[in-house]
């Protein structure tokens, strides 16, 4: 696999950082090279947060990318900021719960999924990011649903949040299904 | 509500609370419920009331208030972390006709800046210092500061601060009150209307001491950092009242004015 890069972007509390980390972790477990880079510092406070995860079968050069292979946009400002930068043939997974209209991005495929609504069905607003990630898996095929489930599980367990694995697993599945 | 509707609606009413003139229209970048905002406003109101907006220079810390210059409609200097008192001294010595205030966090004032803070106080420099004590480093992500309470969890005291390792919380205002140099030292809080009113009075007194050339005035203000305390703003207020105040009692500590 060539370098496959994903920017995850949203508001502070939407789980953006974790989403990116799980992509990286899942990639690593698949034996791939990975990098993960957050935006950091005070601009995170209250404002938007984003991070970049790259997976690749070869050594990864730059951990920053100007033209990512895919974008997960949790809200409108994120789409505005990064939408146009996604490379030709790339994928944008966007949160149609918060983004009503979106422009066309030429040769980029846009996959709208209602992150919030699906999470609401699971009675847990916190899992919107796993919904997003499931959708991303389906839309990009960069990592399989199983790989992400494994990466998610390991990540949560290691940070003492094992009890949330189940609901997150469901969210991944629902998201995956929703991106059909 | 449209301007017109509002005007009609408030006919026969007087404005009893509004944005002070010394603040511009920019929104604070503080987190929801952060007391820095309240304190900033109180200072601005005081500047308005004393009519000194035109000849006041503020010095802002590195810390969550680093953007002071964005919000205040006065001249502002943004020095290095911890140096705010020394920079204020520099301004005041060069231009004794200006009113100079220093605005400092607990990391700034009581950790990296202890030397400069202490000697400005001991010299009795004719400046007004605000020491915003939120018991940790807000800006950098919630590390322990010398004012962190015992057993308080921060990112650098994951099991709570232990006196054995890091000593007890430092009481800067009491410590500086042991010196002969300062004129006025007080500790205030802004978690309810009563304390806010008292804090405002203390701020005004501290500025007056300067305009009257009476020397060094320090207003310590216990301040909430809901984000790094991991509490909602209302709980954060309660924490000050129930915990922080016990360690740092409110009131005037020194008054030679």
């Amino acid at each position: 696999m060539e370098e496959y890069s994903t920017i995850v972007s949203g508001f502070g509390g939407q789980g953006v950082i974790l989403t990116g980390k799980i992509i990286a972790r899942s990639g690593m477990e698949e034996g791939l090279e990975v990098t993960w880079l957050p935006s950091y510092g005070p601009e995170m406070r209250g404002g938007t947060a984003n991070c970049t995860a790259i997976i690749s079968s070869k050594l990864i050069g730059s951990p920053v990318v100007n033209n990512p292979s895919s974008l997960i946009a949790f809200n409108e400002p994120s789409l505005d900021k990064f939408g146009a930068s996604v490379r030709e043939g790339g994928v944008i997974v966007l949160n149609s719960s918060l983004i009503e209209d979106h422009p066309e991005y030429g040769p980029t495929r846009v996959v709208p999924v209602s992150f919030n609504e699906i999470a609401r069905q699971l009675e847990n607003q916190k899992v919107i990011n796993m919904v997003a990630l499931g959708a991303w898996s389906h839309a990009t095929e960069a990592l399989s649903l199983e790989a992400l489930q494994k990466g998610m599980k390991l990540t949560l367990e290691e940070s003492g949040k094992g009890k949330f694995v189940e609901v997150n697993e469901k969210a991944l599945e629902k998201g995956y299904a929703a991106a059909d | 509500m449209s301007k017109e509707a509002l005007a009609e609606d408030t006919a026969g009413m007087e404005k009893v609370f509004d944005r002070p003139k010394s603040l511009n229209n920019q929104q604070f970048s503080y987190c929801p419920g952060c007391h820095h905002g309240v304190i900033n406003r109180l200072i601005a109101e005081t500047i308005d009331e004393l009519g000194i907006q035109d000849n006041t220079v503020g010095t802002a810390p590195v810390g969550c208030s680093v953007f002071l210059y964005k919000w205040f409609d006065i001249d502002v200097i943004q020095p290095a972390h911890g140096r705010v008192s020394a920079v204020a001294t520099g301004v005041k010595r060069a231009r004794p006709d200006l009113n100079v205030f220093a605005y400092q966090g607990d990391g700034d004032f009581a950790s990296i800046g202890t030397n400069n803070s202490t000697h400005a106080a001991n010299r009795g420099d004719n400046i007004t210092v605000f020491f915003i004590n939120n018991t940790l480093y807000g800006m950098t992500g919630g590390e322990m500061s010398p004012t962190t309470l015992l057993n308080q969890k921060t990112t650098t005291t994951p099991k709570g601060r232990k006196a054995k390792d890091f000593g007890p919380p430092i009481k800067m205002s009491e410590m500086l009150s042991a010196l002969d140099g300062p004129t006025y030292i007080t500790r205030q809080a802004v978690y309810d209307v009563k304390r806010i009113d008292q804090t405002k009075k203390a701020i005004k007194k501290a500025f007056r001491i300067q305009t009257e050339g009476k020397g060094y005035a320090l207003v310590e203000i216990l301040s909430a950092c809901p984000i790094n305390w991991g509490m909602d703003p209302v709980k954060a207020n309660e924490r000050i009242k129930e915990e922080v105040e016990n360690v740092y009692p409110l009131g005037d500590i020194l008054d030679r004015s």
Partner: protein
Amino acid sequence: MGEKKLMRGNEAIAEAAIRAGCRNYFAYPITPQAELLQWMANHMPEVENGTFLQAESEVGAISMVYGAASTGERTMTSSSSPGISLKQEGISYLAGSELPSVIVNIMRGGPGLGNIQPAQGDYFQSTKGGGHGDYQLIVLAPSTVPEAAELTFESFDLADKYRIPVMVLADGMIGQMMEPVELPSPIDPSNLPDKPWATTGTNGRDPNVIRSFALGAENLKSINLDLQEKYEKIRKREIRFEEIGVEDPDILLVAFGTVARIARTARRLGKKEGIDIGIFRPITLWPFPDERLAELSESLDTVLTVEMNAGQMVEDVRLSVKSRAQTPFYGEQGGVVPTPSEILEEVKHHV
């Protein structure tokens, strides 16, 4: 070596230090190295004799390093640019007193308060002496998270071997990003060779003294000559660099740290367009790999230096290359990280 872990650069550096036997860590918080402090706060108390102390200031921290290193124990501090500036007097003292110690600088944008984005503006400060007097640090510049861990681990050996402060010089990007890391197995610091010079209480031997003070010019001169002799030894033995495609490339790109990894991507892009970009990456910024670079430049037209600053390492490149090849410079500043395509664009101006 254990299994791979996904770690932030700051965390990997901290953990590598602990595994290298570092038992004393003193520092003051600053972005973008905050996680390093946090890791130490969490994990130093878990190892035997492990000391984590958040100092009152960077000046306090470097002074505590001076004290702890005097006992011969492995000791580290870390900070980012403005905090490192505050440590300059202390660093000059550490070097003058020949105290082994490790200093990590996770660079950010300057000058002054600047911002907290990745930058490389402290090359001069680290390699030419931000402090006063003639002294050197060994300066190691990792370009990936695993390498940051590896170099940090080795820095303690280098520090002990030469009784010299070693600086690990990285930037906010390396500090903040995560990569899979395979950490070295922990060493047992009690098995390290003795340090007969350390101030550990005399216990019967003659007193030891740690100082950088020498009254009388001739005394201080001889101390300085000894230092220079040591530096010469290090220059001979410890130079490190990485080369990629340096045999007859269209252009040689010299870069360290983060820029070097971005340059790799630029090289890949270049290949697609038929441009062969060689990469020369100094790993030791001091001692700088001048001879090898001189050698390579014999057969080159252009040696392009790329940095995230206004042009600092490029001086060492020019001193090495002399007039053998053109030595243009391309830099980004203020926390802007050059992209692979920007670097490629720059390359195209020169080939």
